[in-house]
């Protein structure tokens, strides 16, 4: 079952990683580019993407990174995780970025680069 953590509507291309994200250490909020080479989305930009990743890890200040990405115009338009964590949930709440938690099956079925539409008020949340 898909669970809504932060409400909203978005449409964009999926950027998917299998690495849990430490937003503070891994993403440059001035550019939106992943600058930690240990990530499989190294050098990719999260800007305007539907960012799909297992869950957030590490620094609690990563919530500010998410907010800064938004203020700087480099944020993902939505986030989809397999497990909710407080850093990503609270960062998305303040930055007004729709956020969902999906089942492992759904997570595995999401393809990188595909267009996705999200509407948390609709009966089909993900299209």
């Amino acid at each position, binding site marked *: 079952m898909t669970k809504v*953590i932060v409400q909203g509507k978005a449409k964009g291309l999926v950027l998917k990683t299998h690495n849990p994200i430490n937003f503070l250490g891994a993403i440059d909020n001035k550019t939106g580019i992943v600058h930690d080479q240990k990530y499989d989305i190294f050098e990719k930009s999260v800007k305007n993407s539907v960012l799909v990743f297992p869950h957030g890890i590490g620094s609690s200040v990563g919530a500010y990174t998410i907010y800064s990405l938004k203020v700087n115009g480099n944020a993902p338009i939505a986030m989809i995780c397999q497990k909710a*964590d407080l850093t990503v949930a609270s960062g*998305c*709440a303040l930055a007004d970025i729709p956020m969902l938690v999906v089942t492992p099956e759904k997570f595995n079925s999401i393809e990188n680069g595909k267009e996705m539409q999200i509407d948390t008020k609709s009966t089909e949340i993900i299209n």
Partner: protein
Amino acid sequence: LELTKEEQEALDGEMGETLQTAYRILLATGEATNAEKLIPIKWAHLSGVNYNTIGDAGEEFLRKISKDAQVKVKATVNPMGVDFDHISEFNHIDDEFIEKQKSIRDSYIRMGVEPTFSCTPYDIFDLPEKDTQVSFAESNAAIFANSLGGLKTNKESAFSALASALTGKSPYSDFRKDETNIPMTIRMKLEHPNELDFGLLGFFAGKVGDTAVNISGVSQPNRRSCKALCGGMGTSGTCAKFQFTDVENDTSEKVDFGKEEMNKIYDELNTSDKGDIITLGSPQLGLGELSDLSNMLKGKSFQKRCMIFCSRAVQNQARNLDYTKEIERAGGEILSDCCTCLTPLIDTNETDSVTTNSVKGAYYLKNSTGVDVNLKSLSKIIEEDTK
């Protein structure tokens, strides 16, 4: 998540924009933790104080909300980027950093927080009674509070702890309840582990564990090792609690931490065989650690620059007890209100590599400050880098 009438009104904006924002955050974190209601908390420890970590967007946000926001419960704060008492000794730090850092400091003070600027609130204050609900954002402090302090907190985020400070509430997550079913036991296989080994164990446990882990095979580590364990664990994952246990016949999944596992983590974090400077403290050093350090340094001097980070409160106590004398005579620079992690005090134009015994420090030195790291234990630092 069920809100009371009053909470719902605050969420609808009837009590002003700041509280509305706070309740929006609590609603999201409540959903994220499957909580059914909000409960009162007694103490919030906030992260998001260093300008290097929260940037212009964070500075502006805090300046805006601090115009009318006031904390409702005891609130303490994480380190800033710098020690303003020593700022004139660090010429490379630009005026913009100083101005923005002061603005952030002043915003927190305006909101009524205690200006502790420390990642080790457990070294400064007596902890409240067992099972008290708190909201600690700093990951090492949250893990310490749950695992060694007998308190209850989620591994809060900067915003969820701020929302808790402003409302006095937090979602009643499963983690805050009494039942503890810990699904994994890490078997410590290293003999005579030092604080670096405990830091590496923590980093490993954070990677493989979920929200809590058992650790077996460990006998009464000292405080320095316990803090290193908390720091390492908080850096690498979502784990918010550990429990030392020697029960091995339970049903939890067993994972070994031996030489091989340790070397793998070490090689991930250690990128240099020497450091241009030394830093001690992430987490910031406590009074006992400064006392130990002053004893270890008797008759010795650092052969390179060594920055030693501790909280202002601990520094003042150490000065009264004369622990600082031997450390400063040996060339150590004692700095407060800041920490190894993301401090601009390390001049990257002059410093290519840093020696530290902190696993947490190593991660952020490499990934955020952008310098190479030479990771070794305190006793090895004293042996190799002092004369």
